[in-house]
Each structure stands twice: as C-alpha cells, then as structure tokens.
C-alpha cells in the first residue's frame, strides 16, 4: 500500500522521531510505513489520520 505520510510529515516540519513519539511507536516503524515496507494496523492508521486531521483514505491508497 502506498501513502503520503512523508509529505504530510514534511508539511508539518516533523521528523520521523517526532511523529513516532506522537504515535507511541518506534522511529523504525514510521520509517518502514513511509517507505511502503509495512502496512500499519487499522488502529495505528486511525491514529495517524487523527494526528494529521485527514481521513485514512487521504493518507493511504492502493
């Protein structure tokens, strides 16, 4: 699954570490999601959507 997490994070001038901190996950987890190597669980995807004020489908797409 692809995503625009990197763009959203850059718009908010957040580092991967800061995003990881906000989501309560490791920086490695944020990095692998951004690179499309790992698809997050639904609860984590909802947390990301909530954090960025977006719908899940605005962040993740097939």
């Amino acid at each position, binding site marked *: 699954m692809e995503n625009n997490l990197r763009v959203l994070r850059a718009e908010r001038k957040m580092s991967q570490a800061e995003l990881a901190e906000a989501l*309560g*996950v*490791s920086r490695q987890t944020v990095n692998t999601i951004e690179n499309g*190597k790992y698809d997050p669980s639904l609860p984590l995807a909802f947390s990301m959507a909530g954090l960025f004020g977006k719908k899940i489908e605005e962040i993740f797409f097939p």
Partner: protein
Amino acid sequence: MTKLTEKERQSGKQYMKEFWPPMIAYVVVLLGAQAILRFYPETMWEIPLAIAPVIPIAFVTRSIVRFILRMDEFQKKIFMETAVITLLVIMFSAFTYGFLEGQGFPPVNLIVAASMIAPLYFVIFFFVTRKNNGE
C-alpha cells in the same frame, strides 16, 4: 545509530531493571547450590537444590515476556517472524541430529542445545530485520 523514542527508552530502562536482579540472583543461586551439593552430595535437598536456579530464571523469562509485550506492532512482527523461523530451524536441527544419534553420534546435553537458541535468534533477527526494512 537509531534514535529511540521516549517510550522505547522507558521500556528499555524497565527491562534492565527487571532483567538484571534475577540474572544476578541466578548466578548466586547457581554457584551456591553447586557448592552445597559438592560438600553435601547426600543431602535430602539434592533435587530442590539442583533445580533452585530455575526460580530466578523464571523472573528473567518474565522480564523478557513483558519487554516483548511493550513492543509496537512492527517490532512485534519482526519478533514473531524471527521467533517462528528460529523455532523451525531448531526443530529441523533436532530432527536431523536425532537421526544421527540413531547412527551412533554422541547425545547432546539439553542445556548446551538450549544455549544455542539465543545466538541463533540474533543471527536470524539480523536477516529478518534487513528483509523488513527493504535492505
């Protein structure tokens, strides 16, 4: 070096706090039990003393389980893949050596075999992490 989040730092600190005291207790109990058994080999406490070191090891196990439960979902995925592959390699090796024992190879001490699990886990962990990071 990977920068750790506050949650990971706290988890690591808690792990160290829970892991080392029983580990040190294990060494003390192991050496103490062996010394007593050497000087009093006919004691009625022979069996309890022989298995006494497993009590602190139970707490070491508890600290590891609690550490795993604190991992995030991606870390748990890496852990699960590594653990399953490690288990399969151990099963394959045990079956293979079992057949060789049938052909006269010397029996392997279970403690020696068990002590090989941790190094094997870390070798497999290295490759699983590389694969999941897309390297």
